């Protein structure tokens, strides 16, 4: 199968900021992302869990597959949103099928 190089960016961000992050990604011309739920975690600001929570609390994981040359634009857009907040941004090398989609 023909594969194409890509970057997989994973952004763990506070749930109340999800909309702001996806808006920023849209503006930065990111063509797609997938949002995955997070049930709990731990970090410098302590442990947390989603169990029994009623408000928009906790975190979500936004995953973007992107052409390598567009990585910097994405990171800048994402970082502007994440910077003052808790949250984690990581990047992995990946390969994708159907590169015309990205």
């Amino acid at each position, binding site marked *: 199968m023909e594969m194409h190089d890509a970057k997989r960016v994973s952004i763990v961000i*506070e749930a109340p900021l999800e909309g702001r992050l996806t808006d920023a990604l849209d503006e930065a011309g990111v063509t797609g992302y997938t949002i995955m739920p997070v049930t709990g975690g731990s970090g410098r600001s302590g*442990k947390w869990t989603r169990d029994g*929570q009623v408000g928009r*609390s906790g975190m979500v994981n936004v995953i973007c597959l992107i052409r390598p040359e567009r990585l910097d634009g994405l990171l800048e857009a994402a970082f502007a949103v994440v910077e003052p*907040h808790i949250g984690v941004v990581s990047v992995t090398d990946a390969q994708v099928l159907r590169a015309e989609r990205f």
Partner: protein
Amino acid sequence: MTDILNLATANLISPIILSFALGLFAALARSDLTIPEAVAKGMSIYLLFAIGFKGGVSIAAHGIDATLISALLAGIVLSFSLPFIAFALLRLITRLNATDAAAVAAHYGSISIVTFVAGTSVLEGAGIMAEGYLVAVAAAMEAPAILSALWLVAHGGGEGGMKPGLLREILLNGSIVLLVGAFLIGGVTGQDGFDKIAAFIDSPFQGVLCLFLLDMGLVAGRGLRQAKGVVTLNMVAFGITMPLIGSVIGLALGLLIGLSQGGIVLLMILAASASYIAVPAAMRVALPQANPAVYLTLSLGVTFPFNLTLGIPIYMALAATAAGGA
């Protein structure tokens, strides 16, 4: 005095308080008892819809009282002004920095709808009527406090502030929309509408409230376990003093605008209660530097149980005395 004690005791052994205590115990004892997030959210939607609808129905029945507008205004004024008092008190008796203090203050200007609901049922149990539109006052009080807190930070030299879109987000917050929407639906459909769905929104209400308070106990207990070292004794003192101050101001305003005795109690409860759903989410957006452990612990771990157990009976006794009914 015996009255307060009797009320407080009766209140303490009601199923809803005991359910909260059970949740608290389970979390502190590190039991793995949990209520799924979706179920907790479902219950909160149910409670908001039911309480809003019932408020609307009562308006449809009793007509719009001349005090409606003044009660709404009183609520908005309370929500705007209480954060200033809370902020000053916090800076006086705790070591919180301006940002943390402002974030906490926002919570105390806003309201806790579950405390309001619990108060409603204690009143019902005691056979005291209250104005149905206080539900609308509750909705009106959710947001203004946030603006006050942001003003406090901006003028105190702290970072953070009004992000674009935040105001719309706060005003169209799910719980406000649901509460106001259900209130309007109740108002339009009136007693007829109520009769159709009373078996859903009325009869099982107290029971759902029990399970919801079980969940709140679990969440509060988990928060308290995390909060060791973050929350000091002085902060706890604030968490008990502030609702008392708020309630007294609420009492004064309630007397001023001529609410019924029950209505005064509910306005006191609104003033005394602290938000733990809408405001925390707004704070994460607007004041990310503020430590959530502080405001969540104070609001949910200190003030909420205080109001639920001792606060409500105290406010009822105060209102009864002030209204000359005792």
